[in-house]
């Protein structure tokens, strides 16, 4: 893998973010809105509920962890969409650049933007509502790692879908986190779901994170075994997503889609 070519992909996105507040703003704004909305809701729930459960780490923390996954996924897709919007595929792919270098570049972009978003959300939620991610103890690292790997996998798979179906299929991508969240048990234990939804939850790496998070908040030890299952699943998702992207890219080279991408042909 050529590091200079990977750096070129990162630099292109850095140039765009540096000169464009409208690209930087969304990294923070949706997170801030979620913190305000769910922060006040959890504060209200704490005041009216007689349950021993502290809603701030259980609900607001869950929202922020889910936002983190969403930001990671969008970090990948936004970097990819920049090439879609500027119809840049021919320029990019008629070069020595390898698919692995391109994917590594946009994943590095996602790491940078999601970490920036994470720092802001932790600081804001801590200052405004007293949420400390330290409440999750040592389990915080695997929580973030599993969500990060899953977000990258979702982002790469989403990019492959847009590459296959054309620019207009972008609208299919934005709701993916929203569609997955009811199955992942972000706000409630997976046990409350019907059996068929529980089966889907078992195949989703984030569900292990949120089950683990609720266990830690309830004062139980972190379920390391289940987190390891979640981590393993997330790695499988990531490998499958990369293979999916490469397969779609190769098909696009076979049928000429890369060269006439804006035609949105699905043959």
């Amino acid at each position, binding site marked *: 893998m*050529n590091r*200079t*070519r990977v*750096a*070129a992909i990162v*630099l*292109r996105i850095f*140039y*765009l973010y540096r000169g*464009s507040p409208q690209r930087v703003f969304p990294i923070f704004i949706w997170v801030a809105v979620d913190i305000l909305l769910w922060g006040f809701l959890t504060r209200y729930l704490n005041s009216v509920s007689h349950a021993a459960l502290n809603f701030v780490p259980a609900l607001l923390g869950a929202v922020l962890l889910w936002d983190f996954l969403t930001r990671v996924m969008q970090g990948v897709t936004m970097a990819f969409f*920049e090439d879609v919007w*500027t*119809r*840049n*595929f*021919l*320029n*990019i*792919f*008629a*070069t*020595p*650049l*390898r698919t692995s270098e391109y994917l590594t570049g946009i994943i590095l972009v996602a790491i940078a933007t999601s970490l920036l978003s994470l720092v802001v959300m932790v600081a804001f939620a801590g200052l405004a509502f007293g949420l400390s991610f330290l409440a999750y103890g040592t389990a915080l690292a695997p929580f973030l790692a599993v969500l990060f790997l899953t977000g990258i996998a979702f982002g790469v798979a989403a990019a492959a879908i847009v590459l296959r179906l054309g620019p207009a299929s972008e609208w299919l991508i934005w709701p993916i986190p929203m569609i997955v969240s009811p199955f992942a048990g972000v706000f409630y234990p997976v046990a409350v779901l019907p059996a068929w939804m529980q089966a889907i939850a078992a195949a989703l790496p984030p569900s292990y994170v949120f089950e683990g998070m609720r266990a830690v908040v309830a004062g139980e030890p972190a379920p390391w075994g289940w987190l390891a299952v979640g981590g393993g699943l997330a790695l499988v998702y990531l490998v499958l997503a990369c293979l999916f992207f490469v397969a779609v890219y*190769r098909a696009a*080279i*076979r*049928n*000429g889609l*890369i*060269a006439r991408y804006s035609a949105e042909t699905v043959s």
Partner: protein
Amino acid sequence: MSPPPPPVLAVERLAKSFGTLKAVKGVSFHVSPGEIVGLLGPNGAGKTTTINMILGVLEPTAGRIAFQGVDLREDRSAALAGTNFAAVYAPLPGNLTVEQNLRVFGMIYDVESLDERIDALLGAYDLAKYRRTKAGLLSSGEQTRLSLAKAMLNRPRLLLLDEPTASIDPSAARDIRAGIAGFVEIGHCGVLWTSHNMYEVEAVCDRVLFLSRGKIVLEGDPKTLPREHGAETLDDLFVTVAHEALGEGAAR
């Protein structure tokens, strides 16, 4: 006596089908170092399909493409490292400045001493005053010059130019043709050049290939080829070939 240098581009029995449509039907040709080859033909003849296959963005159904002996199918990255292209239908991202575009693509081609190379190309293509201008704000002629500057970044051994002077005024086009011819002479680069401007083709190309209905139907020196086939000019020959192709198509 030393053997002749290998061609910078060797295309052997190249074919491409889209379903039942045979867009390119087993064409073979080569481009030698220091040679400018014109790829001519009416719309739909298969020129862009052929160029896309050479650029590695379209997989051939059959045949082989090699750059200085490196097979494109076997090592795509190494094969494409010594090529570059400019095409009217592939403008550089309009939301990056001229300099940013050259830097990003210079890094993708892993160009050494990139700062100096960018400065030299900005000067050569009269783009220095637009260094910090977004590419999308340039006129179409300026964007074409930027695409050509990008195409020269890695001092390619093979340059693919698809109507490179289409949006440029005659004076600038003449300068650009001279610049490319000079680069070919100094750098021992080969060029595959498509154009519908027969005056330009005659002025620039050492050899032309007429492509019609996916096949090479004529090949030769653009200065002598018309008379060899009973035409006054290259323009007349082009029209004759195009009409024959249409007639052949209608007969089928």
